């Protein structure tokens, strides 16, 4: 599996920007704090996944790079979730 192919740049931008605005709006009080924070962290992870895949153009066939980036993203997401939920 080599991952997805190129999407148009501005489609990617719209998804990334939309996710950013959504995370912000939820955190501003349109969702309960735990939901807003958790969604914001997960949205950040999805955005970064999209950046790896589409903007950096690193596909799963690029070993060991893509797995390393994947581990980094998973670890960073878990760290933030623990930082939130264990507090």
């Amino acid at each position: 599996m080599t991952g997805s192919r190129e999407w148009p740049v501005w489609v990617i931008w719209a998804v990334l920007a939309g996710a950013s605005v959504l995370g912000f709006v939820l955190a501003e009080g349109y969702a309960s704090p735990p939901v807003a924070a958790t969604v914001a962290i997960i949205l950040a992870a999805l955005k970064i996944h999209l950046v790896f895949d589409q903007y950096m153009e690193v596909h799963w066939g690029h070993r060991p790079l893509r797995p390393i980036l994947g581990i980094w993203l998973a670890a960073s997401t878990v760290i933030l979730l623990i930082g939130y939920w264990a507090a």
Partner: protein
Amino acid sequence: MREAVQADLASANSQSATDDTIPPGDSGVWVFIIADMCAFALFFVLFAAGRIAQPEVYEASRQQLDGAIGLANTLILLTSGAFMAQAVRAARKGNRAATLSGLGLALGVGLLFGITKAFEWSAKLNQGIGLTTNEFFTYYFVFTGIHFLHFVVGIGVLFALIARVRKFDLDTTQQRWIESGGAYWHMVDLLWIVLFAMLYLMRAA
């Protein structure tokens, strides 16, 4: 039909983007990027540990940040990143004019990040909030400060890429340079995505 599209892309992209084993850019640059991202992962651990130890301090401090500026910074970097991605794609197609305009716009939009950041920091300092106010603000200033240094280097890289594209032909070496610079610029972008969520959006119950 899908195959036809892929074949089209394959012929349009001269080098690495369609190569399933070699990532775009210089492999050494990726060492730099991974090492750097690992350093930031350590920052996230520090922040999470600090937040677990003092949740009230972190939440009270977080409320003093201006989330709208954080969002503006995110959108600025995402937009600049989109222009960068366009420049990389144009370079691979050998389109020099589009490459130059992509790089120029990535640079122009990117510079706005410096302005909003200066504005945000000075507002904090004017409120009497500084590096040693509390642990949250230590991390806030240090992490966004180190991120800002990366941003400054990225701006330098964009200037250098523009100069190179003006001077030399868009050959494969040149494409590699642009891909490498692009990967770095996107790293600056994605690190900010985490910082934005971590510093601004983790609202405590």
